[in-house]
């Protein structure tokens, strides 16, 4: 039988080819290989053709212009006000031409009165209402699960002595953790003296892997204005997660640096990540040890990680690694049942390949839950709950259902759970992507096509997951909440800096995702715990936009790199 032509292969890729010719593809290895090569070529060409266009003034300005045109058309055709326009009218933000329609249209005037009445009456009812216990427990349980994702094994510090002098000079300032790669890249703030504060270990996360090795403690010489000082460097949890721990901890954590002899003190300003820290501290830059594997071992590790994706076990705190004994899975799981299920799933996919398992089981008694702040009087969380209550009350009214507060409360609980469920996935994907790009072994040989494909598949999985979760969160917020509670408030056209580095962008994306985590908790769970994160009061809308934009760059960078 004749091989498939390029045109036929393209039609197959598009789902347009007739079934009798499709049958040839199942039988012919050569044609399947040709199809794969063709798709790869097309992907490369597509990536070039879909690069950002120079001179683009941006979607927001373009939309503003279109919105104005649509409003003019609506006014010219004298259309009824849309629900969004009704809310703007109540807020006093609707254009005069459209507002005039409400004055002369009985239907729109009545609709406006209905919405306004509901907002006022429900807000007064909910002002002193505490969250229901199921909601509080649900949110707290989800927070604990997310905390599990943040937990990370302390890294063994390998502090090159040859670089001690360089780091010692930098130790006079407060240096925050590198957003990607192995080196600290945030600009330090240098002041006159150095304060080496006695520190406490960071608060341990709720889930701690029992297979964590005791970290080595090294002694480091710091060159201060008063001379050399010996300090004991202790391993730190990744700082990017530490602010989350600190958010939930009773007191802010300190970084684990203790001085053998107290040196001079310095007033060093804390970077944004440690805005809550009340005393200056010194952070030592860490050199993370990244394993270099032979290409075969590297490919085996990547393929094993793909098994986790296939089995939908990628959220687990388990990672494929390469040991002296070969391929292994290491980490911890919630229960013995989960452990057995994981092992069975991986063994099924290993197809006879020898795989070992070093999996610990977490003690359920270690799980901590935290109560959501119950004080909703006049808080943002309370106003948002008012909006949610109005949304469901209106839906009940239009479907001629009796309005019952308890039923509406259940709907709110379900809605908030849905948002946090998607947020959980968003955090999970962003965390795993960051682990993949910044904290995973690398190959000793570049240009391995199979390894690049495997890595590309893993990256794409998480990128798609982030995209999906972000879109669902956006849909949820826009479905039930008026814009004023979550919209992008950055009027200055803030645009995240493009580092051009895949690892750096991934780390920055994780920062934004964790920022969204905190903001959503404050908005939807009514939490009083607000910590300065970059600019004060970053809205969910802005964080979602940042995540969306940064994800696009990561997608482009990964296509170019792999």
């Amino acid at each position: 039988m004749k091989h498939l032509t390029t045109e036929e292969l393209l039609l197959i890729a598009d789902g347009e080819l007739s079934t009798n010719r499709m049958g040839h593809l199942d039988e012919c290895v050569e044609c399947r290989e040709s199809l794969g090569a063709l798709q790869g070529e097309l992907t490369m060409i597509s990536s070039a053709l879909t690069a950002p266009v120079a001179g683009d003034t941006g979607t927001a300005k373009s939309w503003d212009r279109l919105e104005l045109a649509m409003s003019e058309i609506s006014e010219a055709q004298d259309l009824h006000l849309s629900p969004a326009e009704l809310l703007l009218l109540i807020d006093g933000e609707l254009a005069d031409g459209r507002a005039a329609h409400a004055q002369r249209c009985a239907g729109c005037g009545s609709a406006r009165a209905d919405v306004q009445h509901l907002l006022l009456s429900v807000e007064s009812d909910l002002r002193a209402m505490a969250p229901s216990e199921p909601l509080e427990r649900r949110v707290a349980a989800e927070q604990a699960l997310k905390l599990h994702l943040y937990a990370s094994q302390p890294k063994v510090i390998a502090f090159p002595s040859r670089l001690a002098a360089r780091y010692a000079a930098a130790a006079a300032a407060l240096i925050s953790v590198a957003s990607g790669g192995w080196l600290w890249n945030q600009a330090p703030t240098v002041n006159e003296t150095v304060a080496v504060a006695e520190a406490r270990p960071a608060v341990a996360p709720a889930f701690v892997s029992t297979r964590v090795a005791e970290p080595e403690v090294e002694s480091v010489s710091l060159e201060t204005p008063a001379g050399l000082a010996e300090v004991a460097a202790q391993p730190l949890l990744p700082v990017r997660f530490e602010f989350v721990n600190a958010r939930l901890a009773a007191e802010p954590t300190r970084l684990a640096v203790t001085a053998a002899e107290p040196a001079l003190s310095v007033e060093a300003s804390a970077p944004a990540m440690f805005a809550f820290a009340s005393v200056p501290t010194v952070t030592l830059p860490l050199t993370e040890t990244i394993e270099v594997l032979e290409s075969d071992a590297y490919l085996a590790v990547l393929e094993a990680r793909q098994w986790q994706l296939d089995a939908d076990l990628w959220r687990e705190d388990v990672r494929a690694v390469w040991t002296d004994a070969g391929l292994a899975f290491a980490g911890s799981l919630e229960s013995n049942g989960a452990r057995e299920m994981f092992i069975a799933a991986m063994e099924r996919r290993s197809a006879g390949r020898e795989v070992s398992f070093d999996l610990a089981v977490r003690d359920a008694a270690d799980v901590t839950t935290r109560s959501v702040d119950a004080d909703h009087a006049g808080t943002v969380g309370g106003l948002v709950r008012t909006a949610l209550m109005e949304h469901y009350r209106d839906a009940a009214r239009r479907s001629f259902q009796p309005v019952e507060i308890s039923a509406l409360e259940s709907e709110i609980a379900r809605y908030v759970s849905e948002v946090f469920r998607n947020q959980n996935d968003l955090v999970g994907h962003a965390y795993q992507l960051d682990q993949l790009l910044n904290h995973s072994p690398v190959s000793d040989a570049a240009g391995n096509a199979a390894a690049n494909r495997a890595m590309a598949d893993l990256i794409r999985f998480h990128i798609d997951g982030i995209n999906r979760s972000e879109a669902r969160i956006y849909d949820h917020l826009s479905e039930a909440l008026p814009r004023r509670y979550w919209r992008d408030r950055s009027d200055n056209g803030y645009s995240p800096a493009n580092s051009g580095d895949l690892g750096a962008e991934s780390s920055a994306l994780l920062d934004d995702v964790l920022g969204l985590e905190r903001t959503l908790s404050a908005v939807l769970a009514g939490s009083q715990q607000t910590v300065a994160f970059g600019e004060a009061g970053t809205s969910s809308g802005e964080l979602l936009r940042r995540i969306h934009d940064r994800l696009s760059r990561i997608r482009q960078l990964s296509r170019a790199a792999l």
Partner: protein
Amino acid sequence: MLGRGSRLVLNSFEPEHSAARETEDLFAENRDSLVRYLRHHLSDFAVAEDIAQESFIRFFQARTQGEDVSQPRAWLFRVAHNLLVDFGRKKKPDLLDSEGWQRIERQIGGTTDGMEARAEVLRLPWHKLTRLELQCLQLRSEGLKFREVSEVLDISISTVASYVARAMKKLQEERTTDVEASDHGRTTPNR
């Protein structure tokens, strides 16, 4: 972008109010792709933006007037393509001049830092493609299926596949190894 408010409340209103929501959804999903497609064929970004705006406005008008649009994305690109043709009626229908190719190749080269792999793409002989071949390739790259591309360009599905295959073949046949040499060669497109 304007918040959409309650979807349940939206659904209970008059049909013309869904036109605004549909337009907003279509805009969010396709604005960048549409502008990119137009920009590759126009020297002035503002004109590309204007044509894109006009396309969305026409969609909104069509929906408010009750016109059924079963494939919004293809419909949108078709309108934009026709507006593009009207605008550039004086140019040859299937050829791009040297200035046009230089502009396209600058745009395809991209502006994102750190994308060294793009150098390989720059070496592709884009100037060997006809306008239709490029358009089919572009629309396919923007995510349109062949069926949708055929509706936009008013040609058959098999013709779309042929154009894409031909374009890819041309791009694969000659890949220059020296970017400077290829730039010099592209000042006079080979027809």
